């Protein structure tokens, strides 16, 4: 049959096998852009370092700062090691309860990152889900979801997190243990940041929904949820990664702010924000190390993630190529 001859004889340069995903990534513009951008490489390195340190905290910390048994009041208020009054093994000094600042920073980093990432996951799921539904079905559902989003955007995210957090604490107060507190903070952060995801996903969904491949899927009788998840979702998640990266930095800052204000994590399980809060009290008595090092760690982490997110956004923007 002559139909067979045609395009099969096309472009002899086209390889028969599709290159693997890794090969395709390494040849892509994104990777090339990354290799050329010193800022991106630096930001990524710092982020990776922070993640690594946080992950390894239980193993590399000189002490476990949450374990009261390891603390000795004798060691309290020691300055960092390079200071003449400093003592080994307290590299960065201790606080008023004898807690090693370095260990506290490592554990705090860990907690900040965990809470931040969980927060991103919650807001991501919520936002993508609502965005999908709003964009695909349109009509009244879309209007309702978008108006709620609009209203929420008029409030600063911190305020929303504070309200959710405060209301929950007031209702359940003493019944909350530390795990519940962490969960509560994660939910607060999640609820305050979903809008960005929802809006972006919604507009992408509206574009994809009008494309013929969605019609083709409807033609073979697939139900709407199936089409949304299997066909539309993979095509709208691109911008989500950029939002998630920048969102992570925001989530970490939000948690730190909440803790600093006293409504976040308790002092017995300090994140970087709580440490800054405790350290703040001693700032004017000259013990600067308790607030400085957590502060530097927090600022460094957030800056690195933000820079990475900025680079990613520009690199993925086809108009800037």
């Amino acid at each position, binding site marked *: 049959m*002559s139909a067979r*001859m*045609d*395009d099969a*004889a*096309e*472009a*002899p*340069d086209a390889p028969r096998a599709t290159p693997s995903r890794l090969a395709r990534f390494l040849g892509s513009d994104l990777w*090339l852009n990354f290799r050329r951008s010193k800022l991106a490489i630096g930001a990524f390195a710092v982020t990776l370092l922070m993640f690594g340190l946080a992950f390894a905290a239980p193993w590399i910390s000189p002490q476990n700062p949450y374990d009261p048994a390891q603390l000795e009041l004798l060691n309290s208020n020691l300055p960092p090691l390079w200071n003449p009054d400093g003592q080994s093994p307290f590299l960065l000094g201790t606080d008023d309860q004898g807690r090693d600042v370095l260990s506290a920073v490592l554990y705090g980093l860990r907690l900040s990152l965990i809470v931040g990432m969980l927060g991103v996951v919650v807001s991501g799921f919520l936002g993508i889900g609502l965005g999908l539904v709003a964009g695909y079905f349109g009509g009244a559902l879309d209007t309702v979801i978008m108006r709620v989003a609009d209203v929420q955007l008029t409030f600063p995210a911190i305020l929303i997190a504070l309200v959710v957090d405060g209301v929950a604490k007031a209702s359940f107060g003493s019944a909350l243990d530390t795990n519940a507190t962490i969960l509560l903070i994660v939910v607060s952060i999640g609820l305050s940041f979903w809008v960005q995801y929802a809006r972006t996903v919604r507009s992408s969904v509206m574009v994809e929904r009008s494309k013929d491949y969605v019609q083709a899927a409807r033609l073979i009788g697939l139900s709407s949820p199936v089409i949304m998840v299997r066909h539309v979702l993979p095509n709208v998640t691109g911008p989500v990664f950029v939002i998630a990266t920048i969102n992570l930095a925001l989530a970490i800052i939000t948690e730190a702010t909440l803790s600093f204000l006293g409504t976040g994590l308790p002092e017995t399980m300090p994140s970087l924000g709580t440490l800054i809060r405790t350290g703040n009290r001693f700032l004017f008595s000259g013990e600067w190390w308790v607030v400085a090092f957590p502060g530097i760690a927090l600022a460094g982490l957030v800056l690195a993630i933000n820079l990475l997110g900025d680079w990613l956004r520009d690199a993925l923007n086809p108009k800037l190529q």
Partner: protein
Amino acid sequence: MTETVLSVRDLRVAFETRRGTLTAIDGVSLEIGRGEILGVVGESGAGKSVTGSAVIGLIDPPGRIAGGEIRLGSERIDDLPPEKMRRIRGRRIGMIFQDPLTSLDPLYRVGEQIVETIRTHTDLSAKTARARAIDLLTEVGIPAPERRIDGYPHEFSGGMRQRVVIALALAAEPELIIADEPTTALDVSVQAQVITLLKRLCREHGTAVMLVTHDMGVIAEAADRVAVMYSGRIAEIGPVAEVVRAPRHPYARGLMGAIPTLSDTAERLTQIPGSMPRLTAIPPGCAFHPRCPNVFGRCRVERPEPILVGGTRVACHLYDARGEAA
């Protein structure tokens, strides 16, 4: 042949990418005389739009003119500084693009845009320019031009908008018009109107036209001569009647056979196997040789130069009496 308005010799346009240099046009030569319509036809990727853009001087980096010359009248224009080229554009060369929606600025009245073009390139006063704009609108067939001259583009229908674009192109009395797919976005019945209009105006004003399109039917009706492009080169260039009725280049033959017409009775359309090679993989020798039914040894190694056969120039070894012809 009448006085030559546009002369393109051996034009080469290259694009620098990180994968290397891609040659979009490789040695294109053509000429257009006063009042003549030259159709430049080819499928996607053949380089016809790039040819038009090169003449107007609108090749953006990473593309550049890498060789050859373009002459408007007797003056060379391919090596002009941007400022001088800008003045030639609009004054001596007019442009008509495919989408009338984006060719006209939606924020300005139609009359304002025509008058602006007139006054940029001539010394006419505002009043005279406006009168001339109304004349132009009348010429292109806009009813009630004195009223419609103050309309915004969105108030016109598709066909009317394209007529306005033609009026805009003619506003400064250019010697040459480059029309890139001027009728593709229009309905069939409107296409016919616009083609007729373009033909009439060009005869009356003596404007040379380069009509770039993929629609061979439009070329057959509108053009005097046609250049068939393939892979950045011209396969065949000659009078429309000759090229359409008796194409010589095997690609042109395949192309004419593949186009369904209102009168043919063939059961199957002629099929050219394969597809046009990508810019990164243009075969050596004749670019068409992998798909050619008449290929022979020489075709695979030596690129054919255009040979004059009858009134047509064909770039095909089959017509070279000197070498080993088929």
